[in-house]
């Protein structure tokens, strides 16, 4: 689904979101609630410019609209793989965005995310994965990297990874596996405005993804080990 359709279905009372290059930004009105919308489109490569632009919107929201919820609309092929971005310290830019999101959360902003197309590793860590609640459209693609590249880097046979991906949520791309593992709260396959309203109402500022992974069976050990590390 393209971002225009997604925005229309999310914001039943209108929005002024615009795409400027790969950046999406604006305000959407869902029921009685206005959301700051920040995101990307065209399977954006997330480089230093886009990261800074997103952080700027989060900061402006904290400063000018205290308490207003923030929605990330995610469509990224991952971080930009360029020498220049590394030279400039892209990890620092992304860390800055992550910190802005955390600060917004601590100041009472609800932070939500919707993967409406594709989400890959680095491009997703500082935005959608920082949200109180991250949802996805059913056909969204979420993954670390493709299996061919993974086979190359790990020097494991691709056939073996492909076989494992059929049975294990750990290896298989796809939003459903991230639901099982607790990183995606739910798949939004019906009334998007109703889903957004419910998420705004129910999202918890505490990171409950390990617990969800345990309950849903896709990531059984993380919650137990973290508990033991915290208490033993």
């Amino acid at each position, binding site marked *: 689904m393209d971002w225009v359709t997604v925005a229309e279905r999310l914001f039943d009372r209108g929005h002024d979101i615009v795409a400027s290059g790969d950046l999406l930004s604006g305000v959407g009105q869902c029921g009685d609630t206005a959301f700051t919308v920040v995101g990307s489109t065209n399977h954006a490569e997330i480089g230093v410019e886009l990261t800074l632009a997103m952080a*700027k919107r989060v*900061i402006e929201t904290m400063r000018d609209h205290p308490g207003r919820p923030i929605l990330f609309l995610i469509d990224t092929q991952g971080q930009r*793989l360029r020498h220049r971005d590394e030279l400039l310290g892209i*990890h620092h830019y992304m860390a800055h965005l992550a910190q802005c999101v955390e600060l917004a959360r601590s100041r009472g902003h609800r932070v939500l995310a919707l993967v409406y197309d594709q989400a890959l590793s680095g491009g997703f860590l500082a935005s959608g994965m920082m949200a109180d609640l991250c949802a996805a459209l059913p056909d969204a693609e979420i993954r*670390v990297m493709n299996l061919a590249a993974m086979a190359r880097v790990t020097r494991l046979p691709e056939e073996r990874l492909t076989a494992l991906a059929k049975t294990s949520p750990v290896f298989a791309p796809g939003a459903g596996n991230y639901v099982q593992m607790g990183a995606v709260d739910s798949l939004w396959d019906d009334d998007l405005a109703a889903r957004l309203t419910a998420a705004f109402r129910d999202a918890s500022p505490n990171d409950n993804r390990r617990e969800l992974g345990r309950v849903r069976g896709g*990531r059984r050990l993380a919650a137990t080990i973290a508990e033991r*590390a915290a208490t033993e």
Partner: protein
Amino acid sequence: MQSYYEATARERVAGILDAGSWREILPPTTRTLSPHLAALGLPAAFDDGVVIGSGTLDDLPVLLASQEGGFMGGAVGEIQGAKIVGLFERAKTQDIAGIVLLLETGGVRLQEANAGLIAVSEVVRAICATRVRGVPVVAAIGGKFGCFGGMGIAAGCCTRIIMSEEGRLGLSGPEVIETARGVEEFDSLDRALVWRTVGGKHRFLMGDCAILVDDRQAAFRAALARALRTGEDLSLTTVEHEQQLLETRLARFGAYGDGEEIWRDLGFDKPASVPLLATDALVALSEHVRAA
């Protein structure tokens, strides 16, 4: 063991903390193994490549995690991530001066794919949340594998980063960029180029790392103690300031293609000599020219 670079995760703990203060949490005897590696026919480790525990550093009570580069390049899997996140949970109930992270990692453990990515995300979030609560998180980077991938973002979220010249910090490693874009984009075998791009000196001059030290355990220890006593909390003022710094950096250096061009702009008349400078000489020369 004098060299931080050469030391193992456990040797670093011994070199950094006050003698006799260390108490390991979930030690190898508890056999906290990765549940995913056996399916790939890969060996597991009883600590999953990270050592966590409590101790004192220059009399300051701290919680500490130390990654073992010798096990899968320090990459973060489900168990390793959960151990680190649990340590941050523990910090909520203890009166500590801060959390110390001795980072050596390629980031997400690809052999655990989705579980690794989610684990790294939980670590990033735990660091940010801890800082918001006013507890400093300080990181040291000076091992063979550097600090890359999502853990590069995690490092960037810390209150202070301490590096040695030998340390490397970035998001996508040179090999990853070369594989994706070709050797013309980034020649990962050109060691000098790699260090001019992600090495400790460049990171220090850019303001990505707060303290540059020699590759000695004692130097890292002293710098960590200093960092624990000087960090600031995360606030709207600090992120606004950071936004400005990063915008200025992009405007000033965004058109350059090499570290040397940036160093010249910073005021080094002979940028080619920067890699040859001793750490204290570089630090002294940089007093007035550092980007941040």
